[in-house]
């Protein structure tokens, strides 16, 4: 580690510092900066040339002057020290403790950028996780090693939903609990407190590592935070054989920080000012989830992405959707009707569901029931649209039945209590209760056997 400090800052703006005349500095290395008041700041080399080095400063470049800034190149990449002692701790975006306790020293320092998992070493994720939430378990099942984001928007209860998933997630028939890595970027104090209390109320605090960057903390730190958090998650999963659930909120703040630095660097913008490499950058984070052959642990990711102006085509949710294995989309309309969790099933999707459900995992009829509910709900939406034009009274008997179905589906299947933990069998039985309002011939997506087993025509009042 180099002890030499250079006073050669040439320019500082927007979280970036340019140092000139220092040779042989490695790209990506960690930097320690001392300002005129003796405060320490951390940085990373993001462009290295013969005569000029560009540094991104995690604490920002406010209140820096050129003459009294000393820069030390640590000659090592950014690392996180990992040990079993991570559990139960709280850190900031670059892995320094923020819980008043001493830093972890008795572990191994690991580079935070990770290297790509060899696709040939991966295991395909296929173990069903029961979250106790019908819209997820029944229609968009989560499996171990999946990355399934919650697409939300301001004012919607994404944090409550994420916390409920953390509290309830388990594999049916297994006793071990998930270890939780909580990565918060640009969150408000009240949101951070909500999560902490929720972890503490459910008694899992000793199983949680938190990395927190508040809304008023420097944005540049958000660029390192998910990488630091995932280094911890990978250690817990692949070294300590834990099943790890990573909750990241809010990835939109991360992407905005990336744009801030990209703009300051002068990168050519692609869409809405975001740099062209936003996709690759997000993928580096999301693709760290998964299962690896011959390893017992897994990294499952539930990131929260808020859609600016409720726009799902905004670059951040859009690119996220292309990388992740599905998405759970929250709807303002359902939320306004008082439905919790307000999951809009139409645009929601789990790509890994197909191999995690069915006869050996949940129940034989599960895939077809999900398919049938989706098909009916799509028809019911058409009936709703029609009713809004010509009035519900004018609808045919068939369309009336769809309307009733949609109403009950929203209230009883989608809607559930924040503490209500439904088993997958309860979810499927509830689905059949709704399906049984339709005559057998109308249910073409389920098999004859399913109908014989589960359809209860006449038992439920129409």
């Amino acid at each position, binding site marked *: 580690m180099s002890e030499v400090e250079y006073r050669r800052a040439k320019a500082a703006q927007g979280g970036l510092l340019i140092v000139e005349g220092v*040779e*042989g*500095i*490695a*790209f*990506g290395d960690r930097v320690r900066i001392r300002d005129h008041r003796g405060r320490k700041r951390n940085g990373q080399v*993001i*462009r*290295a*040339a*013969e005569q000029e080095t560009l540094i991104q400063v995690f604490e920002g470049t406010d209140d820096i002057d050129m003459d009294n800034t000393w820069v030390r190149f640590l000659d090592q*990449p950014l690392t996180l020290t990992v040990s079993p002692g991570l559990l139960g701790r709280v850190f900031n975006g670059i892995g320094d403790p923020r819980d008043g306790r001493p830093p972890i020293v008795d572990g191994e320092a690991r580079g935070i*950028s*990770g*290297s790509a*998992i*060899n*696709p*040939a*070493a*991966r295991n*395909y994720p296929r173990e069903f996780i029961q979250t106790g939430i019908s819209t997820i378990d029944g229609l968009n099942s989560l499996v171990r090693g*999946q990355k399934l984001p919650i697409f939300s928007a301001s004012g919607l209860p994404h944090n409550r939903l994420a916390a409920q998933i953390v509290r309830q997630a388990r594999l049916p028939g297994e006793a071990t609990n998930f270890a939780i890595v909580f990565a918060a970027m640009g969150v408000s104090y009240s949101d951070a407190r909500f999560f902490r209390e929720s972890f503490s109320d459910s008694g899992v605090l000793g199983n949680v590592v938190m990395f927190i960057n508040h809304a008023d903390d420097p944005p540049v730190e958000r660029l390192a935070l998910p990488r630091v958090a995932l280094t911890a998650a990978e250690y817990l999963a*692949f070294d300590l054989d834990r099943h790890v659930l990573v909750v990241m909120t809010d990835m939109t703040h991360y992407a905005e920080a990336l744009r801030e630095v990209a703009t300051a660097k002068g*990168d*050519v*913008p*692609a*869409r809405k000012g975001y*740099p*062209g*490499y936003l*996709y*690759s950058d997000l*993928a580096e984070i*999301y*693709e760290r989830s*998964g299962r690896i052959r011959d*390893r017992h642990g897994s990294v499952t990711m539930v990131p929260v992405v808020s859609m600016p102006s409720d726009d*799902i*085509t*905004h670059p951040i949710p859009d690119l996220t*959707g*292309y*990388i992740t*294995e*599905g998405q759970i989309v929250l709807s303002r309309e359902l939320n306004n009707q008082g439905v919790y969790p307000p999951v809009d099933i139409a645009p929601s*999707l789990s*790509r*890994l569901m197909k191999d995690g459900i069915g006869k050996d995992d949940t129940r034989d009829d599960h*895939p077809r029931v999900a*398919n049938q509910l*989706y098909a009916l709900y799509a028809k019911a939406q058409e009936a709703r*649209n*029609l009713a809004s*034009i010509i009035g519900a009274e*004018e609808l*045919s008997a068939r369309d009336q039945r769809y309307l009733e179905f949609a109403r009950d589906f929203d209230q009883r299947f989608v809607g559930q209590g924040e503490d209500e933990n439904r088993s997958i069998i309860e979810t499927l039985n509830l689905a059949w209760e709704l399906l049984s309002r339709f005559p057998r*011939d109308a249910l*073409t997506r389920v098999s004859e056997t399913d109908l014989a087993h589960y359809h209860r025509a006449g038992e439920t009042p129409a």
Partner: protein
Amino acid sequence: MTESRSGYIREINGPILRIHLPGGRNGEQVRIGSLDIVGEIIALEGGDAIVQAYESTDGLRPGEAVHGLGHPLTVELGPGLLQGIFDGVQRPLQEIASIAGDNIPRGLRIHSLDRERAWAFVPADGLEPGKHIAAGARLGTVQETETIEHRILVPPTISGELIDLAPAGDYTLDSTIARVRDAQGSVHKMTLYHRWPVRQARPYGRRDHGVEPLITGQRILDTFFPLLKGGKGAVPGPFGAGKTMVQQQVARWSNADIVIYVGCGERGNELVDVLESFPQLQDPHTGRGMMERTLLIANTSNMPVVAREASIYVGMTIAEYFRDQGYDVVMLADSTSRWAEALREVAGRLGHMPVEEGYPAYLGSRLAAVYERAGRVQTLEGERGSVTLIGAVSPPGGDFSEPVTSHTKEIIQTFWALSKELADARHYPSVDWVDSFSQDVGIAAGWWAKEISGAWNGRRAQALSLLARDAELSRIVNLVGPEALSSAQRWELEGAALVKEAVLQQSALDEADTYCSPHKQFQLLELVMQVFDQGKELIALGAPVQELAEHPILARVRRAKSTWRSDEGEQLAAFASEVYKAFSALRSEYASGQEALS
């Protein structure tokens, strides 16, 4: 052999480096720094060369040494390609996993093809020392997998007098199996493999027209929007519309000899899915394991972006190599948008002037150049081979007017547009029948008429026009309600719904439905159109639409696709006659009712 030249790094900016390398040539491969990572020169500026690195540049320092390797990016072409999974610059990922563990290390020097393995080589008949041998001629064969005979070709740049040819026996890739003296008198040693630069299209005899459709076993594709062997197709769709599923279904079930699946900037788990599921699947055309004819190129979204740009060319060169052996090859590129974004990222870092959405001005011409490497050709040897290229496109926000989709649309012949609305309603495959097109229906119709039925073209057109009527009538319903429609019109709505459910929707997860033979495709289409035609007559006779639409036999028609597999054509035919009988019974009932009235 060009001597290797050295220089040093001047600047590192992410994956782009500025180096000082006297005599560096555009396209030349370089080895960089103490990490020994690989890169390629993409521009020369002043005395410097601009290099894009195929691996992460973390930890490199200005001043570190760079070596020019004197050749462009090439691939190794020979036995051992099939069943493998390679990264974007053709490094074997399974091999890497066994020597380096779970993650991909940097600076690895490893051969693309296994040098240890011996292959049973059988020399071609009639080749004798002293005979003239042409470029691209067959030296012999190696049975690479049980289904695929690997034909060992003279490299396309070499021809001359055959000096000697190895007898039948087991040879490793490095052993000499033949020697050829060219017109200049130099002697070339031939091995079981040769190298070819990826950005250069392999030569062929001449280009031919496509003559038969690629059968994918997917009804909406084969019956409605056919793609020819040697054709160019695109599958655009927003996320969640099922692009990957469509691509995987084509990879699984199409009647190609060789399938090359390029995962370009996509999810790691999707490639694992292919790797794990293909060996368990059976090719319906040969009855053999599906993996035997497949190879994967994987540059997942978290792997270095520059190798993503190369991965499409690597895949295409391997595809051309199998084409030159006289095979029909399908190459799936998922997704070409990620490839275009890699271009954009590099262009941005080089400071090229952005035109649309940040893409450089040469986007259209680069895309066209890639797609134009597809086609059906007469090989140098005089055989027929083809490369069919199907590119997935991931338009931002699902907007088909964005640059990659619109440029692609100008080049391709078949466009399978995926729709978010259909996917949201779980109508899969979510291929939109309004936006999709195929320019080769005429040629395909000839094939269907010859192989299956002369009625195919008429039925196809009838179904499509029924779907168009459906869209029109639905608009009226949405304005004034269903009461405004006549009985005949309401039956058209029911008929269209039947086409959608019984023909267009196809479940990839249903064992009986996932692959649909051309014969079964036509049986289902014919059945549904018969039901519609006969229903129309009944309505004219005064049958109430409601009664027909809720007739129990229609629920069975909807389930017919998953009730009988492709090899149960007789049972399906028997069911069809049962349906026709039921309708005839109804007709005589209503006809007599009418007579009684009149």
